[in-house]
C-alpha cells in the first residue's frame, strides 16, 4: 500500500505548525508500518493529549484519542482484551513523563507488548510553551522566563531502569534511522520505548532563539551521534542515538494467558 493510503486525507493539511517535527514522525511512522506490511485492521494507535497526540487523528488505522497522560492505560486495556492486535502509543514529553509518568514506568515494568513513542520537543506546545520534565536546566519557556532550574529526565535511562525491553533514541533529522528503529520497535515483543527528539520552532525554538525548523534540524545533526561513537567519547555532551536495550523477556499478555490456561487445567482435573 502507498503512504497516502495510511492517512485520513480529509484532515489535511494537518494542524501542526510550519516545520513541526511531529509531521516528520508521522511521515516516518507510516513508512515503517507500510514497510512492515501491517494491515490497517490489525493496528491500534492510542494517544493522550497534546500536539503530538493529534497524530492519531491523521492515521487511517484503529485509533483512540484519550485522556492526558492516560494513553498507556487505555492501550493496556486494548492489548489485554485483544492481544493479537499491534498497539502503538504516540505521546509527547509532558504527556508521557509528567502527567503520565506513573503509567509510563509501570507499563515498562510489566513489559506489555506495545510501542511507546515519546515525541520529545522539550516543551508543552499546545498550551502555550510551558517547560516540561524534558526541558532541562537553562531552557527558557513561558513559565521559565529567566531560565529553567529543573533537571530533565533521561528517557533512555528512565525506561531502561523501569524495565522496558526495547529502548531507543533518534531525531527527526535522522529519518532513515527513525524508520529502521520504528520497524524494530514495532516488531519487538515487549514494551518498546522510542524517544524521538522533535523540533517545536513555534515555542521552543522562538523562546530559546534557536531559529526555525531548518536550524533546529541542523542542531540535531551536529549535537547527536551514534551510540558508542568516538565523537561521544571526545564530547560526552553529544546526545547518543541508536538502540540501547533489546532483550527477550517474559511478556505480560503471554504470561497472563499462560496463567489462565494453567488454572483452567487445574480446574478440569
Amino acid at each position, binding site marked *: 500500500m502507498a503512504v497516502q493510503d495510511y492517512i485520513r486525507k480529509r484532515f489535511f*493539511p494537518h494542524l501542526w*505548525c510550519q516545520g513541526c517535527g511531529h509531521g516528520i514522525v508521522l511521515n516516518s511512522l507510516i513508512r515503517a508500518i507500510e514497510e512492515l506490511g501491517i494491515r490497517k485492521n490489525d493496528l491500534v494507535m492510542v494517544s493522550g493529549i497534546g500536539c503530538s497526540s493529534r497524530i492519531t487523528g491523521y492515521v487511517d488505522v484503529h485509533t483512540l484519542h484519550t485522556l492526558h497522560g492516560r494513553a498507556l492505560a487505555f492501550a493496556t486495556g486494548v492489548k489485554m482484551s485483544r492481544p493479537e492486535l499491534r498497539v502503538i502509543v504516540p505521546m509527547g514529553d509532558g504527556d508521557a513523563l509528567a502527567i503520565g509518568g506513573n503509567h509510563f514506568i509501570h507499563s515498562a515494568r510489566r513489559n506489555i507488548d506495545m510501542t511507546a513513542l515519546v515525541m520529545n520537543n522539550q516543551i508543552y506546545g499546545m498550551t502555550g510553551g510551558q517547560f516540561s520534565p524534558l526541558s532541562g536546566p537553562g531552557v527558557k519557556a513561558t513559565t521559565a522566563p529567566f531560565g529553567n532550574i529543573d533537571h530533565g529526565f533521561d528517557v533512555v535511562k528512565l525506561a531502561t531502569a523501569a524495565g522496558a525491553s526495547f529502548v531507543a533514541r533518534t531525531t527527526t533529522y535522522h*529519518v532513515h534511522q527513525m524508520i529502521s528503529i520504528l520497524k524494530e520497535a514495532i516488531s519487538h515483543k515487549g514494551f518498546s520505548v522510542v524517544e524521538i527528539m522533535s523540533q517545536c*520552532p513555534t515555542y521552543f525554538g522562538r523562546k530559546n532563539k534557536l531559529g526555525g*525548523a531548518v536550524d533546529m534540524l541542523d542542531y540535531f545533526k551536529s549535537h547527536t551521534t551514534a551510540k558508542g561513537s568516538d565523537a561521544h567519547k571526545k564530547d560526552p555532551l553529544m546526545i547518543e542515538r541508536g538502540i540501547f536495550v533489546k532483550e527477550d523477556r517474559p511478556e505480560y499478555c503471554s504470561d497472563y494467558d499462560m496463567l489462565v490456561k494453567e488454572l483452567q487445567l487445574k480446574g478440569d482435573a
Partner: protein
Amino acid sequence: MKHTPKPDMVLKGIFMAKKTLKEIRINRAWCKGCRICVHFCPGQVLECDAQDKAVVQRPQDCTCCMECELRCPDLAIEVIVEHPKEAAHG
C-alpha cells in the same frame, strides 16, 4: 577488496541500475513553506516561491535520494522514480 552485495540488498534495488526521476509532485495545499526540503536537498533542486511554497527549480539535478519526501513534515512531497527496464541494460 571486492564488495559483495547482500542478496536482500540486491532485491531492494540498491545495487541495481540507477533510478531516474519521473516527477516530483508537491501538494501546494499541504505545503507550509518550512524550507526543510529546500535546505537538505543535496542537489539544490527545490526552492520556495513567492507564496512560500516549495517548487521544483532544477529537476535535472535530482538524484532521487528521497530525502525531501522523507523529511517533509506536511507529507506534501512525492518523488516519482522510473526504474530503467532490464532490457535497456542487457
